[in-house]
C-alpha cells in the first residue's frame, strides 16, 4: 500500500491545471509564441471533457471522486465549510464572468494585416510600376555622387517636414502631433519591424496610393494615410524615401544581399 495518494478530486482538478500551466509555459515562455485565448479556451474545454471521461468511467472511481463533494454537501459536521464554499464559489464565478465581460481599454478586435502583400504592379502618376523590379532611381547616387545624394536627402527632409511629420513625428517615431487621434497608429520608422524589413518599392507603393490603395486583405481600410501621388511629385516621393532611410540609419531591404 502506498503511503500517500493524492485524493482523486484533487487529481481531477490538478490534471487540467497542470496541462494549462505546462502548455502556457512551453508556448508562451519557452517557444515565445503564445497560444491565443480563443484557442486555449477550446483546448481546455476538451481537456476537461477528457479528464471527466477518464475519471468517471468506473462506478468506484466516480464514487471516490465525488465523495468529498458529497460529504461537503451532506455531512452535518461540515456545516461551516459548506456555508463558506457555497458563498465563495458563486462569488468567484461571478467575479470571473465580470472580468470576462468588462470592457477593457483595448481596441475592438480587428483581423487586419499590417503589412499586406503588395500587388505585383501598381498604377501611379499615370504610369504602371512593376513593384518586383522597381528601384529608387536616386539610390545609386549614394555611391556614385555622394554630394548629389546629400542634396537629394535634404530635399527629402524638406518634403518630410512639410507633409509627413504631423503624423509620423519629427523623430520619425510615429508620434507626431496628430498621432494620438489616429487608429491604426502612424508607422514608426525607427522600429526595426517597419521600413527596415521592406523594399523601397514597397514604400513607394504605400506612399503613392495611401490608405485607399490597401489591398483587400488589409481591410478594414481605415488607414488615414493620404494618396500622396495627388500631392507629391514622383521625384519628391523618391526623395522622401531616401530621407526616411537616411535619418533612421536603416538600410532598405534588397533581395540581392540575402
Amino acid at each position, binding site marked *: 500500500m502506498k503511503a500517500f495518494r493524492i485524493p482523486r478530486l484533487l487529481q481531477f482538478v490538478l490534471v487540467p491545471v497542470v496541462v494549462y500551466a505546462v502548455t502556457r509555459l512551453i508556448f508562451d515562455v519557452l517557444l515565445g509564441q503564445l497560444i491565443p485565448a*480563443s484557442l486555449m479556451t*477550446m483546448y481546455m474545454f476538451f481537456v476537461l471533457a477528457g479528464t471527466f471521461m477518464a475519471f468517471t468511467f468506473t462506478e468506484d472511481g466516480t464514487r471516490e471522486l465525488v465523495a468529498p463533494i458529497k460529504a461537503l454537501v451532506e455531512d452535518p459536521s461540515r456545516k461551516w465549510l459548506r456555508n463558506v464554499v457555497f458563498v465563495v464559489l458563486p462569488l468567484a464565478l461571478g467575479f470571473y464572468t465580470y472580468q470576462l465581460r468588462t470592457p477593457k481599454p483595448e481596441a475592438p478586435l480587428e*483581423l487586419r494585416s499590417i503589412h499586406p502583400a503588395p500587388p*505585383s*504592379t501598381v498604377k501611379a502618376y499615370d504610369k*504602371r510600376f*512593376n513593384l518586383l523590379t522597381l528601384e529608387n532611381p536616386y539610390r545609386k547616387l549614394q555611391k556614385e555622387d555622394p554630394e548629389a545624394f546629400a542634396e537629394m536627402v535634404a530635399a527629402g527632409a524638406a518634403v518630410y517636414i512639410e507633409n509627413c511629420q504631423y503624423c509620423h513625428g519629427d523623430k520619425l517615431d510615429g508620434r507626431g502631433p496628430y498621432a494620438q487621434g489616429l487608429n491604426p497608429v502612424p508607422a514608426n520608422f525607427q522600429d526595426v519591424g517597419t521600413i527596415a524589413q521592406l523594399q523601397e518599392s514597397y514604400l513607394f507603393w504605400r506612399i503613392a496610393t495611401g490608405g485607399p490603395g490597401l489591398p483587400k486583405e488589409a481591410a478594414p481600410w481605415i488607414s488615414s494615410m493620404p494618396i500622396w501621388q495627388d500631392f507629391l511629385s514622383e521625384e519628391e516621393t523618391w526623395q522622401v524615401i531616401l530621407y526616411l532611410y537616411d535619418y533612421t540609419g536603416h538600410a532598405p531591404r534588397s533581395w540581392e544581399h540575402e
Partner: protein
Amino acid sequence: MKNFLIVVAFSLLTISLFAVYANYGIPEIVPAPPPKEEKLDLGAMTMESFVALGERIVNGKGTCTLCHNAVGGRAPLLEQVVELTKQRLADEKYEGEAEDLEGYLMESMVEPSAYVVVGFGKKGTNDTVSPMPDVSTGSIGLSEAEMAAVIAYLQESGGAEITVEIPTDADEADEEDEEEQRTALTSPEEIVSEFTCGACHIVAGEEGDVGPDLTLIGGKFDRAYLRRSILDPNADIAKGYEADQMPPDYGSQLYASELELLLDYLASLK
C-alpha cells in the same frame, strides 16, 4: 417523467452549446453577395475606364485570380503573359492560330488548351489539356466586350501597347443586322457596288487601279478561272500586280446566287 425532462433539457443544452459555438466561437464572416449582372455602357468608356473594367473582371466576375495567383500556384501568373507570349507562340507545342499578343490572349480565354504552360495541365494529360474553363460560357460567361476589356487590362498591366479597341454597342448591333437581314442582291451592278469591286478594278463604270482591268475579262478567261480568282484571289496573280491585295473572304460573303450572277456578268464582258 422526470427522466424525460432531464433528457430533453440535456439535449436542448447540447444543441444550444453547438449553436453558441457556431455563432460566437468562430469569427463571423459575411459571405459576399452574389455578383450583379453588370450592364456595360460601352459608349461612355475611355480606354482608361475600359482597362479598369478589365481589372475588375480579372479580380471579380472572371474569377481569374482564384487560380492565377502567386499563392496557390494552380495556374501561371498573368503578370508574365506579355513577356512570355512570343516564346509561347513559337513553341512547337502551340496548337492555336494566334499570331500576336491580342490573338493569343483571346484564344487562351476561349480555348485554353491551345497552349498549356508546362506543369499546369490537367492531371494525367501530360500538359495537353488545360483545366481552365472557356470563360465565355458557363458560370463565368464573359461577353465579347468583357473579354476585350480583360485583354486591354493584361496588355496595359504587362506594359505592352493596347491593341484592342473598345467595342461599341452600335458595332455589335450592326453586325447582327447585316447577318440576319441582308437579302440576296439580284443585279450584277448592285453586287459590284455593294462589294466595292470598283475601288480596285475598272468595272461597271468605276475605275480603280489596284487590281487588273476587268472590262474585257470575259474574253480572256473562262468561268472556272474567274470563279477561282474570286474565291481564292492568290491562286493566280495577273502579271504586274501584287499578291495579297484582294480580300480573300468574298467566298464567304457572297451568296451562291450572287456569285453565279457575278460570274455570268464577268464572263459576258468580252
